[in-house]
């Protein structure tokens, strides 16, 4: 899968997994990883469950210390995939060094120092299944367990070293600067999500030869039976008791049978069944006769996406607009003066008002983020345009489809790229995540003399705009079924909601 230098690792924290194996199978099918890591406490049961679901790829769970060694080594090359590697490597590829626990880091370090363990010299991932950063708010300090050993390991290895810390949240990314013998060793650390903070998640980590790690997280309950609208852990357990273990099984069960489950009414059963069908087929289903957005003269909406420097933005540094009517993409970026939010904003708003004031603007979760942020910046920097902006027709496809429950979509999260991918959209594969683009721009704010790979960031934003058009088309062209009450709020509360959004 993918580019030669990229390794995809799926993290399945033992605590995120209930008793059933189906969610694992479902997750593996969805992500198609090269290997699976099971971080968190030693758990033979979960490790065995995962192994049984993917006999063809390695399951990294060094907590068990198979063969008595506290260190397990793997190597990835595009040709071979991930393999156990206890012999000397050839050049290239990525090395994965997994230790049983923090206490085994000295052993790994000794092996590396003595040359008993060699790496290919490109990039190395060090998996520490339960490592988490401790913090003390009284002294405003943190403690990184195994800090000195990690520094020494970083110093021995030649290529970039990334520590995968089991106990840190998935999505965690920090560049540690550790001192070793008077010099500074830089270690990137990413999280594997075996933490109670923020709920149970699975994470797919895309690791590159340059040492970067991009995390895509999905709530654990989006896999298996609980991915269905209206199915929580209790209903899932009852379904399993009746031999209904997968979403496919639910689809093959009559609605009339589902209704006999305790606490499941006709409406819920119909939605559950319909959702199972949507997930299995990848075909969305619209539950209303109304149109998702109003447009003028049947002209398609402009698909808008913005990029900021974080969730409390100091600048909207990119506005991307895809116009499906002419298949054209327009981008407005601030590539020179990150301390001046007004300039790029003015270029965008004047263009929009001059060229397209009669068009509907469409976003994904714009009511939750893009629109209030744009309004906030207009109010702060260009208040003269506020009224004109408020006069535009702005629509939010996410709100219509998901929050208001007007459609059932096959994605595992409500993030645009997940939904689009599930609907067959082939993305441009920029290798970026929203969090990474924001982080990159923050670095640019910090050091404006450096330059970003603007084309890549432009491509990322374009991708989202075009993906939105893809989803819009999929929804407008979808099957329709008026499942009883399909009005506003029909499915509210059963979708994951805003937590999925990271700008």
């Amino acid at each position, binding site marked *: 899968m993918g580019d030669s230098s990229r390794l995809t690792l799926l993290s399945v924290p033992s605590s995120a997994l209930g008793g059933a194996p189906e969610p694992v199978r479902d997750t593996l099918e969805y992500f198609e990883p090269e290997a699976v890591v099971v971080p968190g406490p030693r758990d033979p049961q979960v490790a065995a469950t995962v192994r049984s679901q993917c006999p063809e790829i390695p399951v990294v769970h060094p907590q068990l210390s198979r063969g008595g060694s506290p260190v397990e080594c793997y190597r990835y090359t595009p040709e071979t995939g991930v393999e156990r590697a206890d012999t000397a490597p050839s050049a290239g590829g990525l090395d994965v060094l997994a230790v049983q626990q923090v206490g085994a880091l000295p052993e790994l370090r000794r092996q590396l120092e003595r040359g008993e363990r060699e790496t290919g010299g490109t990039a190395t991932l060090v998996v520490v299944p339960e490592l988490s950063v401790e*913090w003390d708010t009284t002294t*405003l300090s*943190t403690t990184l367990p195994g800090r000195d050993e990690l520094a020494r390991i970083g110093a021995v290895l030649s290529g970039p070293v990334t520590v995968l810390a089991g106990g840190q949240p998935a999505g965690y990314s920090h560049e540690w600067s550790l001192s070793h013998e008077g010099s500074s060793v830089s270690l990137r650390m990413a999280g594997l999500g075996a933490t109670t*903070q*923020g709920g149970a998640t699975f994470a797919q980590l895309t690791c590159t030869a340059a040492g970067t790690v991009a995390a895509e997280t999905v709530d654990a309950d989006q896999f298996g039976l609980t991915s269905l609208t209206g199915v929580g852990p209790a209903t899932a357990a009852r379904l399993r008791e009746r031999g209904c273990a997968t979403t496919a099984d639910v689809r093959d069960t009559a609605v009339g049978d589902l209704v006999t489950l305790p606490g499941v009414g006709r409406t819920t059963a119909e939605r559950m069944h319909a959702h199972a069908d949507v997930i299995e087929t990848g075909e969305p289903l619209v539950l209303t006769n109304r149109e998702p957005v109003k447009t003028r003269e049947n002209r398609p909406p402009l698909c808008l996406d913005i990029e900021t*420097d*974080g*969730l*409390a933005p100091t600048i909207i540094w990119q506005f991307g607009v895809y116009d499906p009517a002419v298949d054209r993409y327009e981008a407005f970026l601030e590539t020179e003066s990150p301390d001046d939010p007004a300039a790029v904003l003015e270029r965008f708003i004047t263009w929009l008002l001059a060229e397209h004031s009669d068009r509907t603007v469409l976003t994904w979760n714009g009511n939750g983020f893009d629109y209030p942020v744009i*309004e906030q910046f207009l109010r702060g920097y260009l208040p003269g345009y506020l009224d004109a902006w408020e006069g535009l027709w702005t629509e939010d496809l996410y709100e219509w489809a998901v929050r208001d429950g007007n459609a059932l979509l096959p994605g595992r999260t409500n993030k645009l790229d997940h939904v689009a991918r599930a609907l067959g959209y082939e993305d441009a594969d920029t290798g970026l995540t929203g969090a990474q683009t924001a982080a990159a721009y923050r670095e640019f704010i910090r050091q404006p003399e450096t330059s970003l790979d603007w084309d890549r960031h432009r491509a990322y934003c374009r991708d989202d705009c075009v993906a939105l058009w893809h989803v819009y088309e999929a929804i407008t062209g979808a099957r329709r079924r008026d499942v009883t009450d399909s009005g506003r709020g029909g499915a509210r509360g059963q979708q994951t909601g805003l937590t999925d959004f990271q700008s």
Partner: protein
Amino acid sequence: MSDHSDTTNGRLDGQTLVETFPRTSLTADSGSVETVSLPAEPAEQVPADAVLRPGLAASYPYDLFSHQATALDALEAGENVAVATSTSSGKTHVYGLQIARALLDAGVLTPDGSRATERNEAATALCVYPTKALTNDQQTALETLYDRLGLDIRVRVYDGDTTGDRRAIREEADVILTNFAGLNVYLEHHDRWSRFYSALDLVAVDESHSYTGIQGMHVAWILRRMRRVADYWGGDPQYVLTSATIGNPGEHSATLVDEPVTVVDEDGSPSGRRDIVLWNPPPQSQGETETATDDANGSSDSPDDSESVVERVPASVEAPRVFDHLTAHEVRTLLFCPSRKLTELAVRRAAEHRRSNPRAGYGRSPEHEAYNAGLGRRTRHSREHQFKTGALTGLATTSALELGIDIGGLDATVLMGYPGQRQSFWQRVGRAGREGHDSLGVLVADHRTLDQYVVTNPDYLLETDVEDAVVDTSNNSVFATHLLCAADEIAVDESDLGVLAEEDRLRTAVGMWREAGFVDGYVEGGVHYCGPRRPQTRVNLYGNSETDYELRLADGVDTGRWGLPDDLDLEPVTPNRAFRDYHEGAVRLKNGQQFEVVTVDDDRPQPGIELEPVDRDYYTRTRKSINVLDATSETERTVNGFTLHFGHGTVLVDHHSYDKVSVQTNEPREQLLPTENPPIPMETQMCWVEVPDRVETALVRKYREYGVETGVDPDDADPPHLGYVAGLHAAEHATIGTAPLELRVDKDDLGGLATLVLDTHYTREGYEPLAGSVGESMEAATRALERRTARLDEQPSSGWFIYDGVEGGLGFARALYENFEALAERARERLRHCGCDRPNGCPACTFDENCGNNNQPLLRASAVDVLDHLLGDGDTPAAADETGTDGNRPTIFYS
């Protein structure tokens, strides 16, 4: 003394109260009751047109009190103002009129008071109140004012109870009234408030004296976050703080708002005559209770026994009787009780008093109810309303009604025990006698240190200087939590350095959160929050931890049988409180119904406590023991050879057992039942005293013969040191007990530990930190200290710790460190002059109801000697020729 004896119109003066009270043991000449009569004060006024613009002055129907005039002039001059004057002195009108002026000046209102514009983008005001009840009350007050002035000003409440169109309030209100818990949360979505904040030019903080200790710290940070948000949108507010009289209104206000503040405290409002009755309950009749400690006989120092063991009827028993007496005479009365539990008990006891005095001429059945924040909102509202309309004549309340909620006119207040501070005493007493009418305040004294001090020194109450309110922003835990919120609201960047916090502190905290994974980015490029949603929910104004315990009924409770509503409508409790009051087996009284805790479930994100209704003839009281570990000195100074330290360390608090206490007699029936709870380690601030070796040696020698006088059987202790360590223990209690005389501190916010082996509690070279390794068990901690004692190669210091009873500290220990001499002097006076004349003291001088050692051993004389030496008044000890007599000292410490 009064020469009135008028009981008409529901009023009763002090003398009449004493004369009509139906009892034999208490008479006016028993010496237990003293009445202080405070004369009426005339008003000092200024014509309204001397201050206000003509249009406003013409429609304002009163002259201004002089303090209102001064405050309005200062506001006009662009200053921030703290108005610290008496209850009902018209403080609301200060900001009320300022708001009116601003709206007229900004052109939002036309000179005739109608609206010039629908959308006010020029002058908005935010008014923040300590409680929702007060918020609603003040909305009415402001609306009444603006009606009278003929001004079309939109005053809106926006808080957790607000229903309806919240967006419309944000978009349209001129004045928004809320509380700090709400403001803390609303700051997150400040973009929805952009209109309001961009026009914000006044922030009123009402009853600001109530923000002390933990709440004060949170409020100070919420106000700093609010200012960032206002600044972001272009608002630049002035502040008005209204406060009851406190010792340091300027300093306190300036710390809260982080800007200079002008103090206005010359009160120009009038007051009626006020009788203050200091009511020391009579001695217990024989058999009414057993005395806790009457083993003082046999000592050579023991005075006349008949004098020494005076145990008075507790205030918790006596005050409800007075309360009932007053309400039976149609005197509208508030009874202030120190705890929620006692409000419930007081109502029972008042009813009992009514029943058992059939010949007192009391009327119908009693019309009193309990009122406290543990009752749900609906119940509270209903009782407020019933009192206001006269359906209830009395409310037994906690401090919940101390603030200015309008419950209608009030004639008398009864205080069950001294509330701990003069400020609070006057605030409570000041609730009665609105609009210049005569009023009555009765302090029913308890037998604690402070109460007895106050009733025997009434002048203390009348001194002008009241306690300081302490707000300390140096608590890093609280700061760190608010930093997450700030980063969530607006990215933290270089413009925050030195503004939100000092540069180093801010960078350090950002670094910690970035490494821990809660924020992204650097100050130079903007720091953004990236942790679990809504960091604002980590802020707990009433405590310092994240998760409150939800109270709910146990499964299978037959609500019908108990006459309970399906929804218990009880407020959640903080973890500290949960550990203290809600262990399994605890019996709590709620709204007249007893509940027993059947399950405590703290193993999930929303911890819960399951209650079962029961009918028991006891309630439960929890006992604790404590230890201090890893004390680290940050600063020290020397006083007459004593070394005082301020620093931080870990306090291990173990609510290990509880007693079952009879509802009827207040006496324990079963004691030391285990709670099965583990100790809670608390990292906090502390100060401590090291006694110099020469003083210690001399006093050990002087008191080496003392044993049973300390309240302890010498066979169970180590005699050579007992007399001395009992003095340290007593000095520790006395310094904590008198701290509220100096600071606005709840004594529950402080704790202490006296020890002969101070050094073993320290961090120092060769000592591994203990908190991490032995924090799970009090026994392990004690053993670790014993091992250290055994290994000591030089004589350790003795002394005592005083610590802040909240994670991260509150600033009290620091304030005590700075004012230790004044504190020592108060404590010494109390110990020396207490009327109990018992060597080990009494609840009025040495006893502390929170003592983990059952108030043993204690010795007044050696405590006075220790404090004498500290204050430079000690006899110079003889030359140290007794070296070696000390021997191996025991590892003992007493909390």
